[in-house]
């Protein structure tokens, strides 16, 4: 197996509506930044792997076909990944596998969503045959899971509010973040309308236009990269069915198994101690404590303590989402890749104001569907 490194990272300025750009312009803004970071041009790329969430978010079926020219893919292999909300992460993993399998030297991977083209709430509320219509989007699906978590763990009511404030304060340090709320406070979050009890308006992610891109390369190609690479230490994915009796959706086994496989590959036995930072897919504030337990950062029932103790803040012992996370920028299909890319920025020392000092090992995490698809990676500043 070949080693794989991240030698270029690029992302757009995320916003509710990037009406200055077409979909073509959006993916190119991220892709050209990643290439520039890697000191390369489209010509140097062997293959393109693109990912996004449901095509109904923009109303274009298999849009990678019309993006082939814009991403310099003509005459090359191009693949399109779709694994629901985890897609940004699994797209990066498909691209990393092309390098680690020794097939290609340099792969461009891109993920995007231009949510302003359509209405995600509508696209996420289809009527499936033989199933009760949800018509409530993602928040309506996840709110009962959060209520179950609170009941199980006896977490105090303000944990979600704390996460919402922390992530928006982190976002102020990230020039690409969508939400910029310098006045954010617990009182403001508490006063915002209740959308799906217990999720308030300010405890949800925004709906964003945005894209993320990375250049992944072999060890040989990484040697000539102008900036420090982030080395891929481990990748893992796990999936489980959506509905069956006895399925634990609050602390899903697919997430636990995925993390266990990931840590084993990376030689990690105590993730909270050994990882310096983690970018975790938290679309609703309460998912921070929930995933802390699922990922083994905290014992079951105690994830919320990490939030309350400030462990997950920038400057805490386990900084979670120093970039501001999904709570501050959410171009859905790109949100997972942004987690993976932000983890790479941390270990490359390129995270700017939201840099975790001395970060050597960081995790990127994404999930999708009804908490059933997981994609994760660990990147480090040292060659594994």
């Amino acid at each position: 197996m070949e080693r794989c490194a991240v030698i270029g990272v690029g992302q757009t300025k995320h916003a509710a509506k990037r009406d200055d750009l077409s979909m073509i312009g959006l993916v190119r803004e991220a892709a050209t930044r990643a290439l520039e970071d890697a000191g390369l041009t489209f010509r140097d790329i062997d293959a393109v792997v693109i990912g996004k969430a449901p095509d109904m978010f923009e109303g274009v079926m298999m849009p990678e076909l019309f993006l082939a020219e814009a991403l310099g893919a003509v005459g090359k292999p191009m693949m399109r990944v779709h694994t629901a909300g985890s897609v940004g992460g699994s797209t990066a993993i498909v691209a990393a596998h092309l390098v680690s399998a020794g097939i290609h030297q340099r792969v461009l991977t891109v993920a995007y969503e231009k949510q302003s083209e359509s209405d995600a709430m509508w696209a996420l509320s289809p009527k499936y045959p033989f199933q009760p219509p949800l018509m409530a989007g993602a928040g309506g699906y996840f709110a009962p899971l959060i209520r179950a978590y609170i009941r199980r763990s006896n977490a105090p009511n303000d944990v979600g509010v704390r996460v919402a404030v922390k992530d928006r304060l982190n976002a102020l340090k990230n020039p690409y973040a969508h939400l910029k709320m310098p006045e954010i406070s617990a009182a403001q979050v508490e006063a915002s309308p209740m959308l799906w009890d217990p999720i308030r308006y300010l405890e949800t992610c925004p709906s964003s236009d945005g894209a993320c891109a990375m250049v992944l390369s072999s060890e040989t190609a990484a040697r000539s990269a102008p900036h420090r690479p982030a080395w891929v230490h481990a990748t893992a994915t796990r999936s489980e069915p959506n509905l069956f009796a006895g399925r634990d959706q609050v602390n899903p086994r697919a997430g636990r198994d995925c993390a266990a496989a990931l840590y084993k590959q990376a030689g990690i036995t105590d993730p909270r101690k050994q990882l310096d930072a983690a970018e975790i897919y938290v679309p609703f504030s309460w998912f921070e404590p929930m995933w802390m337990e699922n990922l083994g950062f905290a014992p079951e029932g105690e994830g919320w303590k990490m939030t309350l103790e400030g462990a997950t803040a920038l400057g805490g012992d386990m900084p979670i989402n120093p970039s501001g996370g999904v709570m501050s920028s959410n171009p859905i299909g790109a949100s997972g890749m942004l987690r993976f890319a932000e983890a790479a920025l941390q270990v490359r020392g390129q995270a700017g104001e939201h840099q975790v000092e001395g970060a050597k090992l960081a995790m990127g995490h994404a999930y999708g569907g009804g908490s059933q698809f997981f994609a994760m990676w660990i990147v480090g500043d040292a060659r594994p």
Partner: protein
Amino acid sequence: MATREIAVVSFAQTNSRRNELDETEMLLPVITEAVKRSGIARSDIGFTCSGSCDYLGGRPFSFVMVIDAIGAWPPIEESHVEMDGAFALYEAWVRLQHGDIDAALVYAFGKSSQGDLPDVMVTQLDPYYVAPLWPDSISLAALQARAMLDEKRCTELEMAEIAVRNRKSAKANPHAHLKGDHLAANLLGEPYAVAPLRRHDCPPITDGATAIVLAAGDLARKVCKRPAFIRGIDHRIEPHALGLRDLTRSPSTKLAGERAGVGKGKIDVAELHAPFTHQEVILRDALGLGAEVDVNPSGGALGANPMMVAGLNRIGEAAQRILDGKANRVLAHATSGPCLQQNLVCVLEAE
């Protein structure tokens, strides 16, 4: 680059037709059958990858519910491409190169009959400059056929003969959708559907699902008498803008074919994913296939065209010829996008 030996060890498909089943119902028996035939326990399958398209089902995440058909409990390592299943097979082949797992399941499904397919396919086009003109998939293929006729690359009679041959071959395929004996001269008396295409030049609208099990070298030899080893696989894409392409040629197929090593030996059977008759001419030419090659003994996509499945079916049908001892070296091709925009070529051999 030295690659690990990976083989197709089993293949199962639905009886292609328009059906009343949902995606999971189509898939369950097919996956069960492919896994059973492979002789590999489900717990030994290290990776699963699928291909499908949300726009066929008219809903997001059409691949989410079909997880029910694969028995993903305990949780499995799994991925999905919004592409034909042939590209999912490519991803599985890449994953198997890592050496830590020895078997993979690949599947694809398509409910092409849920909507008005030629119109649904319009949403696949450039949304700014092309889709608003609403050229449906038959009309775009007709544009390509017209270019072929103008360039004298084929005649309407040759196109009809391709239809006759494929529908006749489909008679021997119990899974085919459209089959029968026709006379080319009679077909030419039929009116145009979209000139210069007549109905016989076009594929049927088929619902279907397919599953294939891949296994690495020693495991493949252990469970299978004649594994179909993948000796080369590659795929390439062309510009989407039709004005940037010579529609009568397929340079991406040619390049993928060269990289897959098509020319390294004699091809016994070629399964080409040519939904329209004139496209078979373009693909034969790009791959340098002579008259001695048996093309589409299954009836091809003209015999059954389940969207997102028909490409994977070509790999399955070609591999099956090796599994059955009827061929030694076969070629499979899959396409995606308007007028053969993206193409995959796979060469399989017996030992």
